């Protein structure tokens, strides 16, 4: 039933409606594109979640509650994503939706979540709806591109940029970021060429970009299209800075640089995570969890992202103690401050508006031809 929403004012009491929690178990669910156009990412996200859950359970659960994870496939379709979130809420009766993916698909569920009062934690990566039930981790596409432009202007003295984007939300976020940030540095956008999602037919767009001779090209496309951009630029003997972001560049993992082959040398990308290959202790712990929890290869940054999100989610639940309910989750969550996972920038939540975006920064990284190297620390875009 669409119960009246828990007006979680944040008094920390557990009088409201809640579900998915018993004394021994906490049920969470997610909806991911395990098939269809974004299956690689979806499977990575799934593996990260599974590893995190297996790890926490093998340590006795959270305050004695074992975590029970339900994964649904939405095939990267908005309609199925909406249906899945409802299924999680009404049929599976989960406590929260954790780490679902689909920039364009997830907003369809926000009004439902609001009516229901059920939290959605760390969806990848819709714009922040500023709703009490939705919690974002991972810096959005737009802010990442803003960081990129700051860096290009300051470090590379770039004066003109061009965009290669997909004709969808992703591309739109890129364009908005350039509109907002470029004027601050007197950087000019000289071209924005668009690609059909999933198409490998990129040559004509790239020829048009080259004709404008920009100092840098920012790619708001998918991994394959970005790889093709790298290859084609090399074939055309066109030396310009090519920049991706966490999604199009897949920094830290071979998603883009793998298929691009030798052409990927020098490729730049913004990153919102540690690299899965890093030897920071937290990342080593992640790799062990991946090995134990099974699933995709551990060098997958998608897996790392959701593994990290799960750590934050578990931390909030842990802080709830025995009384786990939606109202208290919101109250406690908004108190989370400067929480360090070692995997993503430190997390701070706060009250609405704006308080439910937990991380802000991104870093710039470069592929040397053999491995990814961070060029900067996590920084926030210049206002």
């Amino acid at each position, binding site marked *: *039933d*669409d119960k009246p929403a828990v007006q979680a004012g944040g008094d920390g009491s557990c009088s409201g409606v809640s579900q998915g929690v018993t004394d021994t178990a906490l049920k969470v669910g997610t909806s991911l594109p*395990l*098939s*269809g156009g974004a*299956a690689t990412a979806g*499977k990575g996200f799934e593996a990260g979640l599974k590893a995190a859950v297996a790890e926490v359970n093998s340590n006795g659960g959270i305050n004695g509650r074992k975590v029970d994870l339900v*994964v*649904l*496939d939405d*095939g990267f*379709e*908005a*309609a*199925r994503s*909406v*249906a*899945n979130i*409802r*299924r999680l*809420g*009404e*049929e599976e009766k989960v406590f929260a939706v954790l780490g679902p993916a689909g920039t*364009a*698909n997830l*907003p*369809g*569920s*926000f*009004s*439902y979540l609001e*009516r229901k009062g059920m939290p959605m934690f760390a969806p990848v990566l819709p*714009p922040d709806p500023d709703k009490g039930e939705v919690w974002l981790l991972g810096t959005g596409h737009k802010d990442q591109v803003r960081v990129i432009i700051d860096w290009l202007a300051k470090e590379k003295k770039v004066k003109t940029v061009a965009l290669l984007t997909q*004709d*969808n*939300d992703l591309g*739109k976020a890129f364009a908005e970021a350039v509109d907002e940030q470029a004027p601050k540095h007197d950087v000019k956008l000289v071209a924005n060429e668009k690609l059909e999602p999933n198409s490998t037919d990129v040559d004509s767009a790239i020829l048009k970009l080259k004709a404008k001779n920009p100092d840098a090209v920012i790619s708001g496309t998918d991994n394959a299209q970005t790889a093709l951009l790298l290859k084609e630029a090399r074939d055309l003997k066109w030396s310009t800075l090519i920049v991706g972001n966490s999604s199009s560049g897949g920094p830290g993992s071979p998603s883009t640089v793998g298929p691009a082959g030798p052409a990927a040398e020098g490729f730049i990308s913004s990153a919102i995570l540690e690299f899965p290959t890093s030897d920071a202790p937290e990342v080593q712990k992640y790799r062990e969890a991946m090995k134990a929890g099974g699933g995709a290869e551990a060098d997958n940054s998608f897996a790392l992202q959701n593994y990290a999100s799960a750590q934050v989610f578990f931390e909030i639940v842990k802080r709830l103690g025995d009384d786990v309910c939606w109202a208290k989750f919101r109250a406690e969550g908004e108190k989370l401050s400067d929480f360090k996972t070692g995997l993503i920038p430190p997390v701070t939540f706060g009250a609405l508006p704006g308080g439910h975006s937990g991380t802000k920064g991104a870093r710039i990284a470069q592929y040397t031809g053999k491995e990814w190297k961070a060029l900067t620390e996590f920084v926030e875009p210049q206002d």
Partner: protein
Amino acid sequence: MLRDIKALTVVKALAVTAVVMVLLTLPSLVNPYRLFLVSLVAVYMVAGLGLTIIMGWTGQVVLAQAAFFGMGAYLTAYWHEWMPWPLAAALACLAAAAAGAVIGFPAVRLHGFYLAIATLAFSELVRRGFVELDSITGGIAGTDVEPVQFGGLDVAASQWYLALSVAAFALLVAWRIRVTSLGRCLLAVRDAEVATASVSISAARYKLVAFALSAAMGALAGAVYGQLQAYLTPEIFGVGLLIQFLVVAFVGGVTFLLGPLLGAIFVVVARELLQDLGAGQRLAYAIALILVVRFLPSGLAGLPALWRRFRTRRSAAAPSAPAAGEQPALASSGGDA
């Protein structure tokens, strides 16, 4: 109508009453998610009925239902800001019917596959239109849909009664069309297009009527779908949705009135049941589809006929073994050039 009901046997009447009772009290019987699924069945059925009219009865391969569905969803949501939902939905249906007639006007000269490709292109262009018209559709980012709530009912129940009444209405209209003169004229266009003119039927005009009717049904379904989905983006109304509708229409049996209902149940239930298979579910769905088409080529609605044939064949084959070998018949009617 009353008379028809009287003609039913008592048992049938009781069964119908029971079904109606269950449908009316459904919100108190199942959880909101299942209610949502059943509402979805109703929506798919209505969209499928549109295909039954244009493809099943009129024989025109029109692949634009996703576009009309989208028009219904967007326009109803948009107009609902200024007027009551039913009026908004009715206007959206009219608009879609007009669009159907507009594309139908040149398209009546097209046959078979040419028509299919032309209407598919039209559909995708309309979808691109959704992207461009962001004052109405919110463009790529999408738009929220204001929920309709009937006094005292929660959102899910309101949606269900909306879906139920729309489905009942659409089914009633389609049934009346099928059994009256208009239905006969449409079938004539399908089965004997050249002969239609000789009995004063203008094939082109009736194709247009079918285009408009089918578009209106699609839009009606879309109007309710907008309510269920609560958030609309242009990507929803692509080829994938079209394929979904084709499966709804054909798996059920595209010439049967109740075919779309069976098809819609198949689509929704298969999706639900296969969910546990994780990444393998697309494959499983495809296999289910392939098996249904392979063994029930005229759709689920062909099951009773298949059963009857099976029984007669068994009784016929019983006395002496078929010496000539029981191989599939090649034709139900001879080769007629």
